[in-house]
């Protein structure tokens, strides 16, 4: 479904963060990228959603290379990223925030209206707080709204950047079930997660990233059981950090 081939990327004039990343995300799977701080996990997502232009390599969606396309073009192809944090627009209401998810399809009013109603059904929070400003939401509620916003386009691929960040256990569990429900409708999910156990417990496959390269790929369950994993994270090898 999505194949990363020899992906090299970095910011500004600084060195490369990703130094040749190769892995594939199977259609309809949940894949979780794990790795220590600064391994380049978020950078993979940024190149995939178009925020960052790759220096080398390809990102194939099916057979089309989407590396270097604008975020709008990638959104139209059905690939949506949920931002890490501060992604909501605090001066707008919850409803407006969610509706903005369909920005690239803004001409299709009827469809957007119907889709919003569907989403408000799935997430009761959206319906309850529709007219409140996003600034009034708690951290967990914001995540939910960000997640719901990403669904406005009926995406085929959802990219989640550290979904558990700042969430309490209850909110984490809710989020996990939302992700699984989404996946059961056939959506491919690529997650980046610092909290390894949480991320892998949702996922089918795991990808271990370190120092801008893929160290290891396998089934998520195997990875969780792997005793080396504990060492890798509690051992915390840190090589490079994002600027």
């Amino acid at each position, binding site marked *: 479904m999505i194949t990363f081939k020899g992906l090299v990327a970095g910011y500004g004039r600084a060195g490369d963060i990703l130094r040749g990343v190769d892995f594939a995300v199977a259609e309809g799977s949940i894949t979780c990228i794990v790795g220590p701080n600064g391994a380049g996990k978020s950078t993979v997502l940024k190149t995939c*959603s*178009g*925020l960052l232009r790759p220096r080398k390599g390809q990102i194939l969606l099916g057979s089309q290379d989407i590396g270097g396309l*604008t*975020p*709008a073009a990638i*959104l*139209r192809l059905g690939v*949506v*990223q949920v*931002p890490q944090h*501060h*992604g*909501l*627009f*605090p*001066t*707008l209401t919850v409803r*407006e925030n969610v509706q*903005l*998810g369909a*920005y*690239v399809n*803004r001409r299709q009013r009827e469809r957007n209206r119907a889709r919003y109603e569907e989403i408000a059904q799935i997430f009761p929070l959206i319906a309850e707080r529709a007219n409140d400003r996003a600034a009034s939401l708690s951290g967990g509620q914001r995540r939910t709204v960000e997640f719901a*916003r990403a669904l406005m386009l009926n995406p085929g691929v959802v990219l989640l950047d550290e979904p558990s960040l700042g969430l309490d256990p209850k909110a984490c569990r809710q989020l996990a079930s939302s992700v699984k429900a989404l996946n059961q409708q056939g959506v491919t999910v690529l997650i980046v997660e610092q909290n390894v156990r949480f991320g892998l417990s949702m996922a089918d496959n795991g990808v271990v990233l370190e120092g801008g390269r893929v160290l290891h790929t396998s089934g998520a369950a195997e990875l969780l059981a792997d005793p080396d994993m504990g060492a890798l994270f509690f051992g915390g090898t840190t090589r490079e950090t994002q600027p």
Partner: protein
Amino acid sequence: MTELVQTLVFGVLVGGVYSLVASGMNLVFGVMKVVNLAQGAMLILSAYLTYSLWKAVDLDPLLLVLVTAPSMYVVGWATYYLFIERARTTDPAMALVTTFGLALITKGIMALLWGNDQHAVTPAYANRSFTLGSLHFPQAQLYACLVAVAILAGLYALLRYTWLGQSVQAAASSSDGARLIGIEVRKVRAAAFALGVAAAGAGGALLSVLYPFTPSSTDHWIGLMLSIIVLGGMGSLPGSVLGAVLIALAESLTAAYIAPDWATAVPYLVIILVLLARPQGLMGIRLREDMSRA
């Protein structure tokens, strides 16, 4: 007593127009944190445009808003791409100095085209008033205030309820968040800047009826705009309406009870006092760059 009420009435009417005049500068600041010092020159330029159109076609000058606002939108759009975007990427302070340069250029061009003599647009109702009891409502002020409030309401609705307006707000609050939903932040910034200049365009048409103007009026009006947004709170649109009315009242009270000459000093005094005592203004959030989120 009547004199006081009359002064207050006058202040509120003028405040409506001031609100519109300041809203453009405030919008641009809110979206891209650039104070457009050329906004005053754009305002007077629009007043001159109104004057020439009024002379040429003899339409009601207040209706000419429909021409000046779109024309100034184009001017603002071109200014953004030619100057502001480049300056913005180097340093926000440089962007400000650039707009200062643009203000001088515009002022000079106006003097070349229209001369340094005082101009005024004087429709038939310019000197008429409605009378209610012992109170006078100058017609020009009343109509201009109504038009200003209508345009402000339209601007507010545009920002609040349309895709463009929401993308402007989105780009202002979270650039990456906006890009992730496909908003082209650069185009949106250009549109916001142009919209700000268009608001000055509309304001210019109105002020051309209310006040005589020369190219040098630019400085007075830029001071007025700055004082309004500083008082109201930088970046807050409701704040600038409140600021506008308060400044207008302070001006008319000063003119009535102290001396008309000193009324022009009010905006500058307000700027300095507000920034000394309450830098965030009446309705603004604190402007402290070191207090950004950790």
